[in-house]
C-alpha cells in the first residue's frame, strides 16, 4: 500500500484552556472517501480546518501528500511552516464551507475564475472555459452572471463546490455543506457530490450530519467524540452493527432507529 495522502501524528490542538485533540492519529489513503460523524464540539470541523490551514496545531505532525503541512525542513530539522510553505501546501487542498462564504461582490463566474487566474496564473479564456464546465456540472450554467445574493442556498452551495473544484485540488474537504440549507435543498447539493465522485476519483474528507449520504458515499466512516475516533470502519458496519456504546447512542439519537 502506498503512503497515506493525509496523516496526523500525535496532533495536539487547544483553544485556550479547552483541549480539542490531545494525541490525535489519523490516516486517509489516496482516493479514499472518508465521512466524519459525531456530536457537535467533538472536533470534526477543527480537523478539516487544521488541514485547510485555517487553524494551527499545538503539537505533533501532519503530512499531506508526503510533505509536512505545518512544518518545513530548515537546516536539517523541522521548523514551523512559513507563509510560503503553507501557500505551496494549500495547492493540494480545497474546501467547501457550511455557510458557503461566496464572495458577494463578484458574479458567480468571477467567484469561480478569480482564484485560478490570480493564484495559478491561468488565462482568463481558460479559466472561464473551465468555470462554464464546472457550472454545467453543478447545474447552474445559466447563473454565471448572477450575484451570489440572488441565488438560493442550494444554488450558493453548488457554486461553492464549483469554486473549490476550479483550483483542481487533489483533496476535497466538505465541512457540513448541507447544514445551513432548508431540507428540500439538501439533495440538489448532495447530488452534485454523488455525480462528482462517479466521474472522477477524489480524496474526500467530509464532516456531515446526513447519515444516509455518509453511508452511501463513503469508503470509511469515522465516529468522532471528544477529539478522538471512537469507532471507524466500512459504512455498513458502522451503521448496522456499531460496536461501541457511544456510537450506538449517537446513531439512535440521530436516526431514531
Amino acid at each position, binding site marked *: 500500500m502506498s503512503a497515506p495522502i493525509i496523516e496526523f501524528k500525535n496532533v495536539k490542538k487547544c483553544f485556550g484552556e479547552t483541549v480539542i485533540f490531545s494525541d490525535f492519529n489519523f490516516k486517509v489513503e489516496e482516493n479514499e472517501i472518508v465521512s466524519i460523524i459525531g456530536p457537535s464540539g467533538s472536533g470534526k470541523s477543527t480537523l478539516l480546518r487544521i488541514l*485547510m*490551514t*485555517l487553524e494551527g496545531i499545538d503539537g505533533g505532525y501532519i503530512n499531506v501528500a508526503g510533505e509536512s503541512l505545518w512544518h518545513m525542513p530548515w537546516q536539517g530539522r523541522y521548523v514551523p511552516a512559513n*507563509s510560503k510553505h503553507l*501557500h505551496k501546501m*494549500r*495547492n493540494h*487542498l*480545497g*474546501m467547501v*464551507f457550511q*455557510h*458557503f*462564504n*461566496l*464572495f*458577494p*461582490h*463578484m*458574479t458567480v463566474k468571477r467567484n469561480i475564475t*478569480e*482564484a485560478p487566474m*490570480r*493564484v495559478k496564473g491561468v488565462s482568463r479564456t481558460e479559466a472561464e472555459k473551465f468555470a462554464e464546465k464546472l457550472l454545467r456540472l453543478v447545474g447552474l450554467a445559466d447563473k454565471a452572471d448572477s*450575484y*451570489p*445574493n*440572488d441565488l438560493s442556498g442550494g444554488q450558493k452551495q453548488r457554486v461553492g463546490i464549483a*469554486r*473549490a473544484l476550479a*483550483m483542481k485540488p487533489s483533496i476535497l474537504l466538505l465541512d457540513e455543506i448541507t447544514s445551513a440549507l432548508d431540507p428540500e435543498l439538501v439533495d440538489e447539493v448532495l447530488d452534485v457530490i454523488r455525480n462528482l465522485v462517479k466521474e472522477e476519483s477524489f480524496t474526500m474528507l467530509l464532516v456531515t450530519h446526513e447519515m444516509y449520504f455518509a453511508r452511501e458515499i463513503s469508503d470509511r466512516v469515522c465516529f468522532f467524540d471528544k477529539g478522538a475516533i471512537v469507532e471507524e470502519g466500512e459504512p455498513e458496519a458502522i451503521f448496522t452493527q456499531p460496536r461501541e456504546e457511544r456510537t450506538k447512542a449517537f446513531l439512535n439519537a440521530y436516526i431514531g432507529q
Partner: protein
Amino acid sequence: MEFGEIVSVLLQGAIVTIQIVAMALPLAVLMAFSFGLIRLYAPAPFKQIAIIYIEFFRGTSALIQLYWIYFVLPFFGITIDAMTAAVVALGLNIGSYGTEVVRGAIQSVPKGQYEASIALNFTSSQRLWRIIMPQALVNMIPPFGNLAIELVKATSLVSLITIGDLTFKAKMLADTTLQVGEIFGVVLLFYFVMAQFLVFFIRRLETHLSKGLGRGGLHS
C-alpha cells in the same frame, strides 16, 4: 450693501472653503487608509505610532490643533503658510476619525470571507485588496460621508487663522454692513449646498460600490 454684492463677496469666500475641502479631504482619506491599515496589520511599534496619532488628533480640539500648526510651530522653526496649515490640520483631524472607520469596516467583513480566501490560496495582499477591501469599502462610505460633511463645516475654523474663507468673509461683511440676516442666511445656504453636493456624490459612490452586495435599505 446690495444683495448681489454680498453674494459675490461670499462666493469668493466659498471658493476658498471649497479649495480647503478639496485638499484636506484627499489628505484625510490618505491618513485614514494608511493609519487604519497600520493599526490593523503593521508590527507593534508602528501600531503604537498609529494609536498615538489617532488618539491625539481625536482627543484634542481641532481649533487648538490649527493654532498649534499655525502659531506655535514657528517657534520651533517650522513656518507654514495659513492655507497649508489649514489643510494639514483639518486633514489630520478628520483623518484620525477616518482611521477608525477603515479599521471598523475591515473588521466587519465576515470571518468566512477571510477563510474562503485562504482556502483558495490567495496571498495575503490579494485577500485584502481583492476580497476584503471591496466589501469593506461599502461599509466605509456612510461614515466617510459624515466625516466629509464634518470637514466642510470644520473649515469655518480656518477663519481664525486669517484665511478668507466663507465664514471669514461673512464676519467681515457683517461687521461692516450689519446686514446680518441676509449675510448669515446666504452663508447657511452655501454650507448646506456644499454638504448636499457631497451627499449626492457619496450616494452615487455607494450605489456603484454595493453592486451584488444586496444592501441598500428596505426596498431591496
